C-alpha cells in the first residue's frame, strides 16, 4: 500500500494486508499522535488495510502554545 506521511511529507510502500494498529507499530508511531485516513475516510485501529490501498498517516500534535 502507499502510505503518505507528513512533516516532512514523504511516501512509503508497505506490503498489506495489515491492520491500522500494526501499520503504526511497524512505523514506530504512537496512535495517540496520528490519524489514519484511507482514501478519504477515517479508519479505526482495528481496520484492515489492503495492499492496493492509499493511506495517509496524519500527525495531530501542534505546538507553540505559549
Amino acid at each position: 500500500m502507499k502510505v503518505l506521511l507528513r512533516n516532512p511529507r514523504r511516501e512509503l510502500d508497505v506490503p498489506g494486508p495489515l491492520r491500522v494498529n500494526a501499520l503504526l507499530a511497524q512505523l514506530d508511531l504512537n496512535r495517540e499522535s496520528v490519524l489514519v485516513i484511507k482514501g478519504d475516510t477515517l479508519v479505526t485501529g482495528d481496520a484492515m488495510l489492503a495492499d492496493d490501498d492509499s493511506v495517509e498517516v496524519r500527525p495531530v500534535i501542534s505546538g507553540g502554545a505559549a
Partner: protein
Amino acid sequence: MKCRRCKAPAVMDIRRHNASFCATCFLHHCTEQVRRTIDDFKMIAPGERVLVAVSGGKDSLALWDLLLDMGYEADGLYLGLGIGEYSDESGRMTRAYADKRGAKLIEVDLRDDYGFDIPSGSKAARRVPCSACGLSKRSLFNKAALDGGYDVVATGHNLDDEAAVLFGNVLRWSTDYLGRQLPVLPGEHGFPRKVKPLVRLGEREMAAFCVLKGIDYIVEECPMAAGNKHIGYKEALNAIEETSPGTKHAFYFGFVDRTHARFAAEAVPQGGDLGRCDRCGAPTTAEVCAFCRLVERAAAP
C-alpha cells in the same frame, strides 16, 4: 469496531473513553462535550458576543465551527505573524473557512500594523519565537476584543494543550501559573473573559472533527515551534497515554477539580496590580506594556 451510540461501522476510536463512533455520532459527541464545558464553567452567557482566536489550524477552526453551529454570535480574529509560507497558507485556510461559512473575520497583520514579524521581532527582542508570538497574540486579542465590544475571547486550547502546559508548570513548580490555569479566566482589570471550550477534547479528536466536517486546516507544524518544549511534553504524555488511556484527562481534570484551589492564592491575576501602558493604554504592571516594548525593540535599527 461499531459505533457506541448507533452500532454503525465506526470511523473514530477514543481509547480513553473506551468508545468508537461513526461520523455522525462522533460529531454529536464533540458538540456535547463542548456544550457541557461551556455550561459547567459558565463560559458564555446567552447573547454574549464571542471573539474566536483563529490561526488556520485544526483546533481554532473546529472551535469556530462548533460555536457557529451552536448558534453563538462568534466572529474570528486572525493575526498575521509573518512566518513565511506557513503564515501565507494559514491565512488562506482561515479566509477560505470564513468565506464558506459567511462568518465575520477580523484580521490584524503584525508587519503591516506594527512593523515587525515574529522571526525578526523575536530576534530583536531576544525572546524565543513562541514567547514573542504568545505575547503578541495575548496583547492583540485583548485589544481587538475590547475595541470590538466582545464579551469573551475563545481560544482553541484542547485537552492535550492544557495537560502539556500543566505538566510543564508542575515540573518547574510554577505556582503562579498553576494558580491561574483554568478553562475560564474571568474578565478583570480591563481584560475580556478568556475561555477554552475544547478542554474536554483531545487534539486527535479535533483533527478528526475537521476531517469529518471537511474543514481544510494547515497540517504542517509551525516551523518556529518545531521541537519546542511544549511539543516534547505532549509526546511524553502521549507515550504514557498509549499504555494508560485516560491519563491526560485524569491529570488535567484532577488538577482543575481537586488541586487548583491550593494554588489560587499565588495566581497572578490578568495584569496584576494595574496601571495603564503609557503607549497603548492597555492594562499593565509597568509604565510601558510588554507588547509595546517588543514593538519598540523590533523596530529599532
